[in-house]
């Protein structure tokens, strides 16, 4: 899901930088008119937590293991706007320090993983959960929120890859950036995520929400927001 440098044309990565900067500005304004000293450690720790979720390899049915992106669970636990900043900071550090994702692609990566995942996950969780705080409907909502968030993000990523041959080709028709057309990039990204990675995301979201519901339900932002 982390798009490296070189795959996206400037026609794509520049607008995505703009879109992500827009979301960051709104997120910071939502936190408070001007980012105050109180919000700095809160967001920094949320970003550290977002990074830490990826440290845990989860055994999934089929004998393999995988790690979650964590955008969905952070959105449900802390709210989607906090997740925008937290996951973005985590992605920026990953791109700069570990080479996971490109620097030109930070805008697109943040849009896919720090904007699309949190909002889709948060909405799906609230939509399916209704007023249930337990039982199978709650579990389905928890799993689907993680699953849908990453799946929709993968569709966006597939679309971003797939439009490259259309918008950036050489005079001889040779693609200059991501070489796969929409007919290949979109199903490839979407299907592999829907069948594997999104399942891991869904499992992690479900496990964590079940744990929090059992031990500390007051920490779940999505429940508090709905009650409010």
């Amino acid at each position, binding site marked *: 899901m982390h798009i*490296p*440098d*070189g*795959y996206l*044309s*400037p026609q794509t990565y520049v607008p995505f930088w703009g879109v992500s900067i827009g979301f960051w500005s709104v997120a*910071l304004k939502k936190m408070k008119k*001007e*980012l*105050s*000293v*109180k919000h*700095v*450690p*809160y*967001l*920094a*720790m*949320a*970003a*550290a937590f977002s*990074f*830490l979720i990826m*440290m*845990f*390899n989860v*055994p*999934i049915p089929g*004998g393999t*293991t995988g790690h979650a992106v964590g955008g969905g669970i952070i959105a449900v*636990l802390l709210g989607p706007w906090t997740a925008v900043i937290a996951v973005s*900071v*985590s992605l920026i*550090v990953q*791109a*700069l*320090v*570990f*080479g996971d994702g*490109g*620097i*030109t692609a930070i805008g697109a990566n943040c849009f896919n993983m720090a904007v699309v995942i949190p909002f889709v996950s948060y909405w799906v969780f609230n939509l399916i959960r209704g007023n249930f705080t337990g039982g199978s409907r709650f579990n389905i909502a928890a799993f689907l929120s993680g699953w849908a968030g990453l799946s929709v993000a993968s569709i966006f990523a597939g679309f971003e890859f797939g439009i490259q041959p259309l918008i950036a080709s*050489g005079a*001889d028709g*040779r*693609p*200059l*950036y*991501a*070489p796969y057309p929409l*007919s290949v990039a979109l199903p490839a990204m979407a299907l592999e995520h829907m069948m594997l990675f999104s399942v891991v995301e869904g*499992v*992690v979201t479900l*496990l*964590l929400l*079940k*744990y*929090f519901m059992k*031990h500390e339900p007051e*920490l779940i932002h999505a429940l508090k927001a709905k009650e409010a």
Partner: protein
Amino acid sequence: MKSKIPSFLLERPSSDSFTQGSVGLKIPFIEKGIHHVANVIKTGYIQWETAARDSFFHRIDARIKVLFLIFFIVIVSLKNDILPEALIGGFIFSLMTIARLNIVGLYKRVFFLAFFFGFLVALPSAFNVITKGDIIIPVLRLSRPYRFWIYQIPGEIGITREGFYGVVMLTSRVMNSLALSFLVLYTTPFPEIIRALKVLRVPDGFLMIITLSYKYMFIFAKTVEDMHLAKKSRLAGQVNNVDARGWIAGRIAFMFKKTRLRCEEIFKAMQSRGFSDNIKIYGVGQLHASDWIAGVIFFLIGVLFLWM
């Protein structure tokens, strides 16, 4: 120069417990977790140590290096021919040599990442199923072309000149971008890189969030590693997947609570040090003449690459 990196970070752990699966060797989730975390800590430690060394490139102001990084990464993304990419690659290599970095170690990492994220991902596009053109390496001949919905499979499948060129181009672009970011990262302490982003008018509050979270990512990564090791030391046999998932959920939840608690402590520490509601990052000094000269040289070289 003698390495100060602890030997345990440089050695491969001897306690791997691989189990024979039906398909091949399987690494249990605990080992995978430990390796993942250990790699993160090791990367951070090596960067801290390498960035603190002294060389011509290390002494350049972080602001110049950040602008150099952005300028050159954009140039790399704009170039569509192999020759300029190769020349840029050579230029980065010479800068790494001047900076007295561990060339072998760094390029191993660059090649590894470029192989996976550049070459392997792009390789299928070299075939005429994706990229049309003159076949230079025939691979398979079918009895006739096939058509499924919007997909077409030609009668002869092979690697095309255009496709191969695209794969090489994409791989070299990924490689150059990685080498550039590693060059700057391994010659500049991370907090200085973040502080240097002030030249791009990034708000001070946002920079402070990145700096703080970066520090705590490593602190908490150590905690995660300790948790994995503690679990491993208590395990006599194998743990089933359901129990493993339950344990992981509990540990992630524990980390969440730990970050929430630490957030309160950091806030109090910040208050006691006099942080007010207006966050300002200080300590950004004047650029020296040598920084300006380096900046102008990098700019001119960049323009030359752009013009090529």
